[in-house]
């Protein structure tokens, strides 16, 4: 069913177009008049808010229509080559609408926050230009109706991530971080592309509707082709969504402005991988090995990242590893086949993680300003320099506590419902296939650690004595309302977000689950039937809550903010703590095993031998030498000497004679 321009569904092109317009306008302003901050603010945030409004109308229009299948709006024929027909087309269905609302909604709030946060930055216009461009690409990603269009968005958000991480590129570390993110993403993109090739090869099309309709017949469930496709797709996900082994770029990406971290590395871009698996849930359901890999990697990453977060001192790094960990949860969800659970957690995580990041942004903003006024240059992001900020930033503190409770999974906050549903789904599948019980256990331990390190973060930042230093302390105060306002909205969403999908256990309507059913049903039909008794379900809920409370209580008891010392005077960690502090030395391992050999190879072989030797000396200079030799040889023909001409003439005659006489002897 194609889009009818009369209904609001036909407006699906408007939000991306608005974002692109914002990019163009803000980009122009960045070049022409970078000081025009008011205009940039209005344009930058305005296009997002307008986009959100349009998204809501599309949503209501779609919900009222109750269409059978997805609505595809084809805009133009993009790649008509042989048997391949790829159109630039957007797909409006239940899943893409959820993503559309999350991206535009949370995006708008972050844009509003940025107006306050980036107020003093000279690159203000450039920032909003990039941010708008990012939203454009993200919308293309979630609205795409076929793999290539989605890939355009996929690559585009990677590009914008690079631009925004390295926003303050005059610092080499920031530029390096941007580059690291982009390159690791590319490794994943390679996986995505290979998967696309195989999909086309097997099904002859790249449109979602066609591929998913053809997949059950064109591919054998559990066979090599489908496993290859899904594994390569997941490789792309590990890159984009920072799972093992391609996650190391995300902590480094904290070098970018904090609202960027909130938008890109918490709420939207990193969730693209989860969206991909959700979109291709039929394919993953047909490949149980890959699904297990997805869930396994997700669970492992969840636990692994949580351990690292335990010992980080930079407030943003804690949140970065927390994001990686929570993404792991989402992958457990979609890997288990509980697509709606994974998407549910995607939405709730967007709410509370954006809140956490923006809140930390407020904190950093305040610390920065305090240090600035006191003419100090201490690290504004190190928790050892904070402490007791509750006194000066009550709103931020309260809101961040809400988010912490949500992420730890305390009822009735949103995170409780989403996380719990994932764990329940894993356990349920574990009754049929035992390995999933392991994933459930890993997830549970990670939940414990999550509660612990989040409480730790809150303790060190907002409670206990203040370690900021006397000179700076008197300049600390709450963030301006343009920044705190969005935090309030996000706080409300973190609390109420659970309403999206209250499971039947609590006599809720499981609204999101039913809403997504048209998208998830084909895949769900292929999964093993699992059923948990009510008793088991209540038990699981109980265990999860106990674990979360234990984490919080444990942190509250064991950690002593009073014994902390400001960062410059802090002692070095020793032993196991040191391993955690240094992220299990994964970056160093990658550097030694992969980066260094590659650099060596590039320099010695590719540069010196091939580029210089073969191509420069051989091909380029060789061509010149050949031309010169040919010229020198041909010189003889132009001497003007009649004798030479005669000789040439005779040679010509001989050739003719030879042709005429041939082999006749």
């Amino acid at each position, binding site marked *: 069913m194609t889009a009818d321009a009369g209904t609001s569904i036909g407006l699906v092109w408007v939000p991306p177009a608005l974002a692109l317009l914002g990019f163009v306008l803000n980009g122009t302003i960045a070049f022409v008049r970078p000081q025009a901050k008011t205009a940039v603010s209005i344009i930058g945030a305005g296009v997002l808010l307008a986009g959100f409004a349009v998204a809501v109308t599309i949503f209501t229009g779609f919900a009222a229509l109750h269409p059978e299948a997805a609505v595809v709006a084809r805009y133009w024929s993009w790649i008509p080559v042989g048997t391949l027909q790829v159109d630039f087309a957007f797909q409006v269905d239940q899943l893409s609408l959820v993503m559309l609302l999350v991206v535009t909604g949370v995006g708008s709030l972050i844009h509003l926050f940025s107006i306050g946060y980036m107020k003093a930055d000279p690159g203000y216009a450039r920032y909003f230009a990039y941010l708008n461009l990012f939203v454009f690409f993200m919308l293309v990603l979630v609205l795409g109706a076929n793999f290539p269009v989605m890939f355009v968005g996929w690559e585009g958000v990677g590009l914008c991530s690079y631009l925004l991480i390295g926003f303050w590129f005059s610092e080499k570390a920031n530029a390096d971080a941007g580059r690291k993110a982009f390159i690791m993403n590319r490794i994943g993109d390679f996986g995505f592309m290979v998967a696309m090739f195989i999909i086309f090869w097997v099904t002859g099309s790249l449109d979602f509707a066609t591929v998913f309709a053809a997949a059950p017949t064109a591919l054998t469930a559990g066979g090599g082709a489908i496993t290859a496709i899904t594994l390569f797709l997941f490789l792309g996900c590990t890159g984009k969504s920072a799972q093992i082994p391609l996650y190391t770029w995300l902590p480094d990406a904290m070098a970018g402005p904090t609202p960027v971290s909130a938008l890109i590395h918490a709420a939207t871009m990193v969730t693209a991988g989860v969206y991909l698996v959700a979109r291709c849930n039929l394919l993953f359901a047909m490949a149980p090995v890959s699904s297990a890999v997805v869930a396994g990697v997700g669970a492992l990453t969840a636990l692994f990242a949580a351990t690292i977060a335990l010992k980080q001192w930079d407030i943003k790094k804690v949140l970065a590893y927390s994001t990686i960990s929570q993404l792991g949860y989402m992958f457990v969800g979609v890997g288990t086949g509980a697509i709606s659970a994974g998407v549910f957690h995607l939405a709730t995580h967007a709410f509370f993680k954006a809140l956490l990041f923006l809140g930390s942004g407020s904190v950093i903003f305040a610390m920065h300003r305090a240090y600035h006024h006191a003419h100090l240059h201490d690290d504004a992001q190190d928790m050892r320099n904070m402490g007791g900020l509750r006194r000066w930033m009550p709103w931020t503190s309260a809101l961040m506590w809400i988010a912490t409770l949500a992420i730890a999974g305390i009822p009735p906050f949103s995170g409780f419902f989403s996380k719990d549903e994932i764990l329940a789904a894993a356990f349920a599948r574990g009754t049929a296939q035992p390995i999933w019980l392991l994933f459930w256990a890993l997830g549970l331990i990670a939940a414990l650690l999550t509660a612990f390190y989040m409480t730790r973060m809150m303790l060190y930042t907002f409670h206990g004595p203040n370690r900021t230093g006397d000179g700076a302390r008197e300049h600390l105060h709450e963030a301006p309302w343009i920044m705190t306002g969005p935090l309030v909205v996000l706080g409300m969403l973190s609390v109420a977000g659970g309403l999206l999908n209250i499971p039947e256990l609590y006599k809720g309507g499981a609204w999101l689950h039913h809403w997504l059913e048209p998208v998830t049903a084909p895949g769900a039909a292929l999964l093993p039937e699992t059923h948990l008794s009510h008793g088991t379900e209540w038990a699981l809920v109980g265990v999860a809550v106990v674990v979360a409370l234990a984490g919080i209580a444990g942190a509250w008891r064991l950690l002593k903010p009073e014994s902390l010392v400001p960062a410059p005077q802090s002692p070095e960690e020793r032993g196991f703590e040191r391993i955690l502090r240094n992220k299990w030395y994964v970056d160093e391992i990658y550097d030694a095993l992969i980066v260094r050999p590659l650099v060596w190879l590039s320099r010695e072989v590719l540069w010196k031998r091939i580029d210089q030797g073969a191509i420069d000396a051989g091909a380029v200079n060789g061509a010149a030498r050949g031309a010169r030799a040919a010229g020198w040889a041909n010189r003889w023909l*132009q*001497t*003007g*000497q*009649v*004798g030479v*001409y*005669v*000789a040439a003439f*005779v040679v010509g005659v001989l050739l003719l004679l030879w042709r005429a006489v041939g082999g006749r002897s």
Partner: protein
Amino acid sequence: MLNPALSVSAVLFTLGVAGVLFRRNAIIIFMCVELMLNAVNLTFVALAQVIGVGGQVFVLFVMAVAAAEAAVGLAIILAVYRHKQSVSLQNMNLLKDG
């Protein structure tokens, strides 16, 4: 009689070509060209034996043309000599490029 005659003609022609190739004096080269023409005449006459008397008629024409060509060619050599004071082919390089 035909084949030996043709062979002789071939040899004469080749000698003429060789002469054209390795001599520098323009007049001598011209003479070698005449030699070639005569070789061709011999071919025609030999073939007239088997094809018809038209061969001999053609020889007549060849001779006429040869005469004309000799006249004009020698006139050209005279003119060139007046400019260059030499008939050596090496000095006749006005066609040289650049």
